[in-house]
């Protein structure tokens, strides 16, 4: 029998860098989220001072007459909007991380592979056909059903033609985006003038029309789906070994795949329903977290959620304050950041992993 020595004695020889501890990054990101939330609430056409903001926070219901404007701006405009940015960013980043795990490909992003345009198609259908069966939930539900069907289709295509690697997934994305775009185009063509207005507003990817009702709808979806997704962290890690070896180690791949398709569709649909398609968050954020903390999904998913939310809140502050009083659509900002990053990832090559 071998002597069992304490770990600090047996582990002295570690020539390579161990993973850094996760706690500092969680704390740092959480702190940054809180600060950015405050920053987002204070900046804008009507700037609020810290005192005004704190007063509004301290008294959510009764208002001094002198405080009325600040109070309304904070509670009715800025806070729901910043929270929506946080939730949408978290949803997109987690959905990107999960899609990448599912496809075994770091280039999988809801926008690039076509999940977002699938969700848009569902949302546009709901708007144009004026469906209203479930009140405020109709739009996200339509987006979800369409996104789930699209994700399943993309997955089936990607697995059938696996040999193509990166190029293949991107080609599938192009095709799916083209088809979904074409159908969305027909629907837009059929739309009435007032529907067109809401379609245009929505399709540019904007946080300009957010109220508490929307935040109330998206919050449970993102929290619940994120929690369920985090529970799949261990099987997602094993999926990196390929489906066959994952199954050997105890992953029920068929069930896992179904769950991942539903959860990524849910998260993407939640984001797309309220803010249109905002691209590249799901590509950039998980990649940065992987660089910092390694690919293990135990930390990748929650850290991506925090960082994605942070990025989108910052982007929204930028969208509102770069060219006041008008707003730059936030999707344009994330694409400005994400597009070159995407090119760099492709050029770096190694992204498809090891196949021996």
């Amino acid at each position, binding site marked *: 029998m071998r002597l069992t020595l304490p770990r600090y004695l*047996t582990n002295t020889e570690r020539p390579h*860098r161990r993973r850094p501890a996760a706690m500092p990054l969680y704390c740092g990101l959480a702190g940054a989220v809180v600060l950015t939330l405050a920053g987002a609430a204070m900046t804008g056409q009507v700037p609020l001072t810290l005192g005004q903001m704190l007063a509004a926070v301290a008294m959510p219901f009764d208002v001094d007459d002198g405080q009325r404007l600040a109070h309304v701006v904070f509670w009715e405009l800025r806070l729901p909007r910043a929270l929506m940015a946080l939730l949408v960013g978290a949803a997109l980043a987690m959905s990107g991380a999960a899609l990448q795990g599912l496809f*075994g490909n770091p280039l999988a992003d809801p926008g690039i592979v076509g999940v977002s345009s699938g969700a848009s198609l569902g949302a546009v259908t709901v708007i144009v056909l004026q469906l209203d069966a479930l009140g405020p939930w109709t739009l996200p539900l339509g987006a979800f059903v369409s996104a789930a069907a699209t994700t399943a289709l993309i997955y089936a295509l990607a697995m059938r033609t696996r040999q193509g690697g990166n190029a293949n997934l991107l080609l599938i994305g192009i095709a799916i985006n083209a088809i979904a775009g074409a159908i969305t185009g027909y629907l837009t063509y059929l739309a009435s003038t007032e529907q067109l207005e809401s379609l245009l507003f929505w399709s540019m990817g904007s946080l300009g029309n957010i109220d508490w009702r929307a935040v109330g709808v998206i919050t449970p979806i993102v929290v619940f789906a994120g929690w369920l997704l985090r529970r799949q962290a261990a099987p997602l890690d094993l999926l990196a070994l390929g489906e066959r070896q994952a199954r050997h*180690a105890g*992953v029920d791949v068929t069930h896992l795949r179904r769950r991942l398709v539903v959860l990524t569709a849910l998260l993407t649909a939640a984001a797309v329903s309220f803010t249109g398609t905002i691209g590249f968050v799901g590509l950039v954020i998980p990649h940065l977290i992987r660089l910092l903390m390694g690919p*293990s999904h135990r930390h990748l998913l929650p850290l991506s959620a925090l960082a994605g939310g942070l990025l989108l809140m910052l982007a929204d502050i930028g969208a509102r304050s770069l060219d006041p009083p008008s707003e730059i659509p936030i999707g344009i900002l994330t694409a400005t950041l994400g597009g070159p990053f995407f090119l760099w990832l492709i050029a770096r090559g190694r992204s498809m992993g090891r196949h*021996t």
Partner: protein
Amino acid sequence: MTSPHDETHANPEPAIAVVMASLSLGGRRVLNAIDLECAYGHVTALIGPNGAGKSTLLSLAAGDVRPDTGHVSLAGRRLEDLSVAELAAHRAVMPQDSVLRFAYQVEEVVRMGRALRDLPPARDDTVVTESLRTAEIEHLASRDAMTLSGGEQARTTFARVLAQETSILLLDEPTAALDLRHQERLLRSARALARAGSCVVVVLHDLNLAAAHADRLVLLADGGVEAQGTPWQVLDAGRLTRVYRQPVSVLTHPRRHCPVIVTCDAEGDDAEGLAPSHEADNPMEASFPS
């Protein structure tokens, strides 16, 4: 020569029982009425030419594919009655090729072996360290597993399979990428596991490794079992020459006293003449300098 320690294991069920299993893939009969039992406590080596059906038989035992006719049992239970999790508790598989898609570190990959096993987490660190040590990859523990050499990858996969802590191990050409030392080490640890009561089935192309380390050999040819038994029973020069269509001679290992197979030239009028089958009974020890 090795001899199975039958008394060390009291489990009456064979670890793996393949009963009259046939399988066709792409319209071709790949496995033909295979009958095979592998017991706990033994290392069974599957040998045979390329395309004989070794990997297919292994994936049949692993539960990856169902036979068209016949059936397969693991630890006394039909494969179709076992859930994915139960299968993972019974058997670990080292495949012929390995895949990794993100930059996990070697230790993280090894840990994946037991990530979904219902085992006490308190032992995780010990078992992982132990597995790293057995595969001699402790010094690589924090390396990006996507940057490993072929042999280092194979050793990482082997460590992951060990970390799964199952009583049945199915290894498909585990030594193909390994250097001499690690070929020996891997098969020695496989044998140690068998001695401790596991059932190890290993596909090997190197007949000498099979002869030296396996208790039992199963020679497959054209989807059927051509011969099975101890190394001396199976590794008959005439049979090998016919099955592999390559003349061979069978010698005796100077130290281990197990068979040693050497290939011969096919020149001369007929291949049989170069590899007379009586050599198996009359080993040419003299040809080894001692």
